C-alpha cells in the first residue's frame, strides 16, 4: 500500500524508533509489520532511503547489512566513544547469548533446532560470532535433506566460564514460577 504525503513523517518516526531500539538488524519484511495496514516493500524501502539521507550528517548512520537494516556508530567516532566506559566489558546480544545457551544445554543441535526453540530465525552472524570465539564448533552433520551442521560447545567455553564439565552448568531452578509471560505485549 502506498502512503499519503501527510503520513510520511509519522511513518519515518516509527521506522526510526523501531530500528534504533532493535538489538539486531531488521529486514524490510519485518519492518512492513510495523504498519497497519501494512506498507509495500517499495514504500518502506523509500522511507529507509530518506531516513538514511537525513542521518547523513550525524555520528550514527543507517546502514543495510546482510540480514536487514540497522543504525550503527560511524567508525570515525568509535574510538572516542570507547573512552566512555573503559572498565565496562562489551556484552553479547541476547540472540548470541540465547543461541549459546541452547547449544550448551541441548547439544548437539542444528541451526533449525535453535530456530525452533527460540521461535525466531538465527542470523548466520550469530553462529559465526560463537565459532570465531572458539566456543562452538561443528560436530558433524545430521543426515537429513540439506545435511545441516550439528553444533556443540567446546572445552574453550568451559575454560572461559570456569567449569570443568558441562554437567556443572547451573541446573534449571524453576525461576519461572514467579514470572509469567503476559499474553499481550
Amino acid at each position, binding site marked *: 500500500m502506498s502512503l499519503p504525503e501527510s503520513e510520511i513523517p509519522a511513518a519515518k518516526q516509527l521506522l526510526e524508533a523501531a530500528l*534504533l*531500539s532493535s*538489538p539486531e538488524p531488521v529486514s524490510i519484511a519485518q519492518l512492513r509489520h510495523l504498519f497497519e495496514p501494512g506498507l509495500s516493500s517499495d514504500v518502506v524501502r523509500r522511507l529507509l532511503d530518506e531516513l538514511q539521507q537525513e542521518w547523513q550528517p550525524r555520528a*550514527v548512520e543507517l546502514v543495510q547489512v546482510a540480514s536487514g537494516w*540497522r*543504525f*550503527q*556508530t560511524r*567508525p570515525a567516532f*568509535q*574510538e572516542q*566513544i*570507547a573512552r566512555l566506559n*573503559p572498565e565496562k*566489558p*562489551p*556484552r*553479547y546480544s*541476547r540472540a548470541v*547469548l*540465547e543461541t*549459546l*545457551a*541452547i547449544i*550448551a*544445554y*541441548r*547439544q*548437539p543441535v542444528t541451526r533449525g533446532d535453535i530456530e525452533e*526453540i*527460540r*521461535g525466531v530465525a538465527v542470523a548466520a552472524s550469530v553462529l559465526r560470532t560463537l565459532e570465531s*570465539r572458539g566456543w562452538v564448533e561443528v*560436530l*558433524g*552433520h*545430521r*543426515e*537429513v535433506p540439506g*545435511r545441516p551442521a*550439528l553444533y*556443540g*560447545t567446546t572445552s574453550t567455553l568451559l575454560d*572461559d*566460564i*570456569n*567449569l570443568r*564439565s*558441562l*554437567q*556443572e*552448568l*547451573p*541446573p*534449571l531452578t524453576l*525461576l*519461572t514460577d514467579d*514470572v509469567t*509471560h503476559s499474553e499481550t*505485549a
Partner: protein
Amino acid sequence: MELLEVPLAEPIAMVRGEPFVGLPQDLYIPPEALEVFLESFEGPLDLLLYLIRKNSLDILDIPMAELTRQYMAYVDAMHRGRLELAAEYLVMAAVLIEIKSRMLLPRPVVAPADEDLDPRAELMRRLLEYERIKQAAATLDELPRAGREFVVVQTWVDENPGGRLPQVTAHDLQEAWVQVLSRARINQHHRISREQLSVRVHMTRILRRLRGQKFVVFHELFENDATVPVAVVNFIAILELVKESLIKVSQSEACAPLYLSLAETITELPS
C-alpha cells in the same frame, strides 16, 4: 443457610463452567472453588483487608467480634473443604481470638487515650502497613517499565577498538536458557531435565570421538572404569544418536563387532 458472600463484580471462580460467587456455609463446597478463592489472597492480612472492605468496617475501629466471626467462617470452610491450610491463617485466627477476648475484659480507668492499651492497635498497624504496601505494589507495577512500555535504544558499535571480548558467565547462560524456556513454554512443552542434559553431553562426546575417523568399535566408546550409570547413559546416548540419524551402526556379520561411524561418512568395514 448463611452465605459467606463475596460481593465482587465478577465471580471469584468458575467451577465446571458455572460462576461461583459465594461460599455456602452449610453445604458442600467444591474444593476447587475454595482453592481458587484462597489463592486469590496473599495471606491472612490480605483476607482480613478484604473482609474489612467488603463489610465497610472502619479499619481504625474494627468491630473484633464481627471480623473474627467472618474470618473463622472462612477458616472453618477451608477445614471442611479438607484444604491444606497455610499455618499463617491459623496463627492469625489465634491472634484475632486473643484480641477479642482481651476486649471483653474491663478496661483500666486510667489513661484510656494511650493507644497501646487498645488490644487492636498492633493488628491495625499491621493492616495499614500491609495495605499501603499492597497499593504501592500495584502502583509500581503500573509505572512505565523498560522493555514493556518503552525500549532502551542501543545502536550497533562495530568491533570495539580496544579488542576486548564480551565476557559470559555460567549464570548468564542459565539466565538465557530460562528466558528461552519460558518463551518456548508458550508454544510447546520442552521437557528438559538434568538427566537429558547428561545424555546429550555423551552424545556430543561420541560425535567428537567419531569425527575424523572412519569408524570406532562399539566397546571403545565405553571406558573401562565407567560406572554402571555412566555406561547406561552412554548407551542411551548412542541409541539417541542413531534415532536422530547422526550416527550409523554397522556389523559385517552376526556376532561380529559393532562399528560406529558418523552418518555422513561412508563406512567401509574391515573385512
